[in-house]
């Protein structure tokens, strides 16, 4: 596959997904004595378009490397960041792409990308458990990291009343599932 420069990648995304790319920035990082550099791209996108954007990413480069999903509770919304990298295999060419999304807590739903990238399954199961995000299309499997008898409706990494802070000191108040 042909190498596309980071600025051009953002242009391609903006062109293809008109209005969906809310914010974008490119960071150039240098290292060592010779100060060679590599690029990091941050894109804030509309969560509804995630699947199409990942599909488009797969068309730019056949197998984008999926690293992880990080999440953050920011009050009204949950921020999810999908970390990818593309063009691995050549020196200084690998470009990190992070897709930032804000999901409203009233409608915590996102489409699965496991049909495009099967390696994302563990990460999707993790955000489901830790943030209570409903991943549509993901088979309903048992908890991957939390114990089987973990209380329902408690999402450990949330910072609101659904979080696990109350379990630290007042564990007896949290009902256990049978």
């Amino acid at each position, binding site marked *: 596959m042909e190498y596309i420069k980071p600025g051009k990648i953002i242009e391609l995304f903006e062109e293809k997904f008109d209005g969906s790319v809310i914010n974008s920035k490119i960071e150039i990082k240098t290292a*060592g004595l010779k100060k*060679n550099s590599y690029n990091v791209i941050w894109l804030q996108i509309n969560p509804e378009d995630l699947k199409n954007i990942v599909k488009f990413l797969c068309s730019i480069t056949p197998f984008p490397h999926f*690293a*992880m999903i990080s999440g953050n509770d920011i009050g009204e919304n949950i921020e999810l960041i999908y970390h990818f990298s593309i063009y691995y295999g050549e020196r200084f060419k*690998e470009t990190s792409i992070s897709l930032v999304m804000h999901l409203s807590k009233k409608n915590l739903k996102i489409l699965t990308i496991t049909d495009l990238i099967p390696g994302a399954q563990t990460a999707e199961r993790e955000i489901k458990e*830790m943030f209570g995000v409903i991943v549509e299309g993901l088979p309903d499997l048992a908890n991957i990291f*939390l114990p089987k008898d973990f209380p329902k409706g408690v999402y450990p990494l949330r910072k609101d009343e659904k979080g696990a802070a109350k379990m630290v000191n007042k564990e007896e108040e949290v009902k256990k599932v049978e």
Partner: protein
Amino acid sequence: MNKESYSIPIGPVHPSLKEPMTFNFEIYGERIEKVNLAPGDNHRGIEFMGRQRNPIQIIYLAERICGICSASHPFAFCRAVENAAGIEVPERAQYIRVIIAELERIHSHILWAGVAAHELGFDSVLYLSWRAREKVLDLLEDLTGNRINYGIFMIGGVRRDISEEQIPRIRETLEYYKDIYGKIEDIFLNDPTIALRTKNVGVLTKEDALRLCAVGPTTRASGINKDIRQDQPYSAYADLEVKAITPDVLTGEVNGDVYDRIIVRLLELVQSIQIIEQCLDNMPSGEIVVEKKLVKLLNQLKKAKGEGIGRHEAPRGEVIHYVKLNESELPEVWKARAPTYNNLMTWVPMLIGQQIADIPIVIASIDPCIACMDRVTILNKANGQKDTLTKKDLHELSVQKTRRIAP
């Protein structure tokens, strides 16, 4: 499960494969037909704990995510914070970081070689290889003060310099490994029994490795040219010529089996020695840390706003940390991901179709922070009976198979 075991049961760090991990296999006769993985038995909630700590305290917490990768996690974490706060690391510190990380790779790969030999029933090789590993641990103790959990990483640099007097000792240790490398290679690559037990066992095809986003030696043994030190060079790696190692360098072909994973790890030993030598030759002089006073550094981080990713090629593959700083004492988000997290799913295609006696070596072949299978449930389709095999039983089966096929 009793209450004490999960008083803080949260945190998506996944270092736990060294600890309990349950596999459910469905077998037909001797053949594995279905694999179910059930991790999470030992989730320690490290990210949750990180919420009450400032960035400098988190370095030491990150170091304890894994006992073997104890340079990799702080390396990635420090890079994430530096990227978020816009801190430039002095060049000398970048070189010291790489030296420590590569010494760690040497000890980790030798440890893995010992474990693999043990799983096959060659316990004398286990003792000999772990004896050889002592030398690099002693060197690490000399350089950092600790054999593991080095405590040398600091945001903006490292905490200890490498003095002129220590350099001959590093070179001497590297010479020692160059001397014994021939023996290690001979044992693992030329022994007919090891070849019989590992060739065409636990095959991971190139396509599966790409689809499952595998990392580290597991993916390189399947012929994928993926190594962060090569693709996105950071620290001193940006000055050094590092090339991802695939098994065809040695044999001219890629099978993606356990044998190929042995080749990749052994060749990486040589590569690490070369990297350290290059670092010693080209090491610049100068400061080793941006800010010596920790209070001042904390104040600087308290005012910082931004987000950053830190990646590092650990012995087992890509470690990635994400940090968000938001003008407060504690970081707003800290997310860590260990390499085995991505390699977890590759066990399924590797194990299907294999025999029960091959389970230990296949599981060990991705180098999960140690393959400790406390409990394996086996459902025998022929009579519908459920048996539980302990690690001891499985090990015994594996040793018996080696004896059976040894020429």
